[in-house]
């Protein structure tokens, strides 16, 4: 919890004041509370007189609400009930288009859509009350697939069911293809993915004495919830207070959804006048909350004889689900990255997000990019095979270098580590040698089997190695950061220590630690001397959401500026340079005594060279990009289609590793989510509802499924980031899927264009390949 407590490692850290804070792996800021069980997550908090809220949801994907029946046999005493008519403000969850209601009023647009809320002091009674509400719905024909959405026989949104279309063009596509020596085409499919943060969504709301509302809970973006609650309750900003509690993972799943569950808790608290807690169980969380957008991606590329790209055409369709929520921005980010980290003079990208009657898909680490990177990297592997070229070599010939121009026309001025990540990965993993060795061993195994020789245990195994290269723009897309106008502040606490005031949340990734390092470094203080204020909209300015790989680069950058300014003020006051440590505190205390409070603020200023047009999708999409190469070694069981990931080696260009252990942890964690995406994780549907909404059946990797993950940090500094740092949170999620496809193709000769590559899909493909040689 980014609570302002003294770290247990203060003594150790104090003795290390001479060591710079940035670049050192200091103990995690809130680590002590997390390993002792003291950290309070939302479900650990009990308020006096508190009720427990439950949500009555739709069991069908589309229909009209005819009647809501409250079982007359049930004892309704003590039960608080709320529906859409109880909403004091607008029945809308504020995202981009404001098309999603907090509670369905008449029309049901997806299964598990919220209709009625109930609350009771006893959670068991609340649950029983939920089960005693029956909603009579007249079912309508649902649209459950992207194909049906595009056919637009049933219209859910506008005339064509398209929430948003993005077009990006550069050069002359037709001329590019005309000049190509080789044209390769492929269609790639990716499925839903559940964020599966270990802590389910949860919120506690209560009315405040001043007639406002206080909502605390698990979230990434307190000011998103703050904004949403104003509209829902019809309250001015100062009457709404949102406080983040220790948050057990987010990965995007707590970017937009907290506005929904927070609104539900607030509505029940508003109506009952008592504190209300809503914490989902896993079943509800998986069934009702957002997922990664499934995508169908058509890629067509033209190449010169040496493999260099001369034309690239990509068509992306993403399933946005029932409401637009974050889909427009997920789509545009996915589209901007869709041609991969490769220079190409002639590009055309078209991307559409369509409406279906499935729960809205939303933010998930990578935000549209894992889909398009899976497609383009699978495609590049196919191209390499067609050219008879080593996949590494094909990428070498095409990867971005400084001076290249992206499809949106952005000139890559600096900090392009693509080639370095490629080369370092290749060397570390012994790429060429393993590529040859596995091919040789596989051929030998096939010969042995044909001759009737049996391997140990009768197994028929094949091994392969594959790689992928990806990029990820850090910060909001295009003019996003400019319009966010993020504001960060740093002040002196009464004890003379600096206190960080930002709305960015510690959600496990280490934001609090990194902030304390950045500030500590500039002030000459050990990071443990830096307080981090709890993200509480009454206390911290709006420094923007904790999303988009922006926290270290953008907000860390603002804090670095704040720290410089704070130090200058104190040095001017002391009329000498500060010595850090105890000296800093003395001077600070003297300042507070003589001059009063000291607080400095910095607002985001876009670098002057950056330009972006939302109309044409031309210009500088991001301040900079991060790059990663990942090589994965797999073992395929030909009898079962099971894929065991043996090892991962990855080099990732993060600009500057402010905290090597944390950044490595981000890369390893994102990598495993990416491996789950590629191999294991499949949301299965039945009649428009999530069928496998249990952890038993929506499987994520265990420690045994996870391979050893060897991380190489590449530092190509970005002049616009603090100490050269750029975004890294999402990048690791983008790379694994393409590498896995490539490794399986290397191991078996069979290339799959759909993820996850479940044993069912792989075994079927292997059988087909045998039948049609």
């Amino acid at each position, binding site marked *: 919890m980014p609570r302002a407590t003294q770290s*247990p*490692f203060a003594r*150790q850290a104090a003795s290390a004041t001479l060591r710079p804070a940035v670049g050192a*792996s200091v*103990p*995690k800021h*809130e*680590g*002590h*509370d*997390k*390993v*002792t*069980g*003291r*950290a*309070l*997550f939302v*479900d*650990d908090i009990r308020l006096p007189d508190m009720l427990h809220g439950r949500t009555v949801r739709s069991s069908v994907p589309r229909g009209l609400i005819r009647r809501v029946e409250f079982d007359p046999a049930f004892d309704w005493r003590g039960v608080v009930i709320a529906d859409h008519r109880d909403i004091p403000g607008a029945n809308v969850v504020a995202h981009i288009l404001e098309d999603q209601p907090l509670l369905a009023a008449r029309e049901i647009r997806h299964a598990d859509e919220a209709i009625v809320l109930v609350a009771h002091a006893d959670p068991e009674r609340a649950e029983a009350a939920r089960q005693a509400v029956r909603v009579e719905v007249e079912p309508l024909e649902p649209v459950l697939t992207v194909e049906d959405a595009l056919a637009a026989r049933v219209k859910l949104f506008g005339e064509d069911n398209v929430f948003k279309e993005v077009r990006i063009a550069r050069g002359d596509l037709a001329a590019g293809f005309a000049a190509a020596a080789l044209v390769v085409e492929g269609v790639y499919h990716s499925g839903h993915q559940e*964020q*599966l*943060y*270990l*802590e*389910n969504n949860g919120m506690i709301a209560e009315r405040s004495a001043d007639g406002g509302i206080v909502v605390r809970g698990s979230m990434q973006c307190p000011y998103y919830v703050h904004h949403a609650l104003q509209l829902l309750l019809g309250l001015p900003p100062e009457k709404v207070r949102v406080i983040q509690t*220790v*948050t*057990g*993972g987010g*990965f995007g799943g707590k970017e937009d959804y907290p506005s929904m569950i927070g609104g539900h808790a607030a509505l029940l608290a508003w109506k009952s006048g008592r504190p209300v807690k809503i914490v989902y*169980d*896993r079943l509800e969380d998986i069934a009702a909350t957002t997922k990664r957008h499934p995508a169908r991606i058509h890629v067509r590329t033209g190449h010169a004889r040496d493999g260099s790209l001369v034309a690239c055409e990509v068509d992306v369709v993403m399933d946005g689900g029932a409401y637009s929520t974050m889909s427009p921005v997920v789509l545009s980010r996915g589209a901007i990255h869709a041609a991969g980290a490769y220079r190409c003079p002639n590009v055309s990208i078209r991307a559409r997000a369509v409406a279906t009657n499935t729960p809205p898909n939303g933010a998930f680490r990578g935000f549209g990019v894992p889909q398009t990177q899976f497609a383009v990297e699978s495609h590049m592997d196919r191209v390499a095979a067609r050219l008879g070229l080593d996949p590494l070599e094909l990428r070498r010939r095409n990867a971005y270098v400084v001076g290249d121009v992206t499809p949106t026309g952005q000139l890559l001025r600096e900090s392009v580590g693509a080639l370095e990540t490629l080369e370092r990965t290749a060397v570390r993993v012994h790429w060429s040698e393993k590529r040859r060795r596995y091919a040789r061993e596989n051929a030998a195994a096939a010969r042995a089997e044909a001759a009737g020789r049996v391997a140990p245990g009768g197994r028929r195994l094949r091994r392969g190695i594959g790689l992928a290269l990806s990029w990820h723009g850090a910060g909001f897309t295009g003019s996003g950061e400019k319009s966010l106008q993020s504001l960060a502040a740093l002040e002196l606490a009464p004890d003379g220590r600096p206190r960080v005031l930002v709305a960015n949340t510690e*959600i*496990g*990734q*280490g934001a609090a630690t990194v902030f304390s390092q950045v500030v500590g470094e500039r002030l000459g203080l050990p990071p443990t001397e830096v307080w981090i204020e709890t993200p509480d909209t009454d206390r911290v300015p709006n420094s923007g959401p904790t999303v988009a790989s922006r926290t270290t680069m953008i907000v860390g950058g603002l804090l670095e500026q704040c720290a410089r300014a704070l130090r200058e003020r104190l040095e001017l006051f002391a009329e000498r340079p500060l010595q850090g440590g105890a000296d800093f505190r003395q001077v600070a205390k003297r300042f507070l005594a003589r001059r009063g409070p000291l607080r400095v603020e910095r607002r985001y200023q876009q670098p002057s060279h950056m330009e972006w047009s939302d109309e044409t999708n031309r210009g500088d999409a991001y301040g900079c990009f991060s790059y990663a190469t990942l090589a994965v070694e797999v073992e395929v069981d030909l009898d079962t289609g099971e894929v065991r990931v043996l090892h991962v080696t990855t080099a990732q260009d993060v600009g500057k590793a402010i905290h*090597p*252990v*944390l950044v*490595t*942890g981000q890369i*390893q*964690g*994102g*990598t*495993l*989510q990416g491996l789950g995406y590629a191999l294991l994780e499949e949301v299965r549907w039945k009649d428009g509802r999530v069928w496998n909404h*249990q*952890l*038993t059946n929506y499987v*994520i990797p*265990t*420690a*045994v499924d*996870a391979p*050893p*993950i060897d991380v190489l940090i590449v530092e190509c500094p970005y002049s616009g980031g603090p100490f050269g740092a750029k975004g890294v949170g999402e990048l690791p999620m983008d790379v694994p899927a393409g590498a896995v496809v490539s490794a399986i193709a290397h191991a078996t000769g069979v290339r799959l264009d759909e993820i996850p590559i479940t044993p069912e899909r792989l075994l079927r493909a292997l059988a087909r390949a045998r039948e049609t040689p």
Partner: protein
Amino acid sequence: MSPLVTLSFTLNGRRRRVRVPPMKRLLDVLREDCGLTGTKEGCGEGECGACTVLLNGLAVNSCLVPAAQAEGARVVTVEGLARGRGLTVLQRAFVEGGGTQCGLCTPGILVTAQALLARTKGRVPGEDEVRWALAGNLCRCTGYQKIVDSVRAAARARNGRKDSARAGAGVRADAPKKRRSSTGAARTRAKAGAR
């Protein structure tokens, strides 16, 4: 409503008596009736291991244990691993080595790892052994690598310098360091936690 039963058990070394419904989950007894919220619920179906506690020395999912079956038992939760405000060598390794990120899985993982360390006294469990032991504790943040590294680093520290030389081959550049100074005290605490 079923009548409540009196449940007596030893919780983190102290005798406790609570009046609870007999089929109430041990998880809820700990969190609601004993006020120890360190034990977490991640799934309620014995998959994620966030609710792991030691029941008579065995790692179990407390979301699958009826209160009635904890009668007379010794229960250890994450709160009982260390004494006072100090940390066990294992907890310290997690803080320094990146073994904890969001922290929701951490209490269960620490308890399972504690059980593993108790079973592997005098040696450092191999990477695979640690992975299999932790297969019932899901983590979505770390990719497990730093959890495995932290557990092994703790085992090395516990066993002192002799072992760390032998197991040194597996040390990663970013694995927790500065272990020697804390070894003595940490060893005592680890023992206390293993009860």
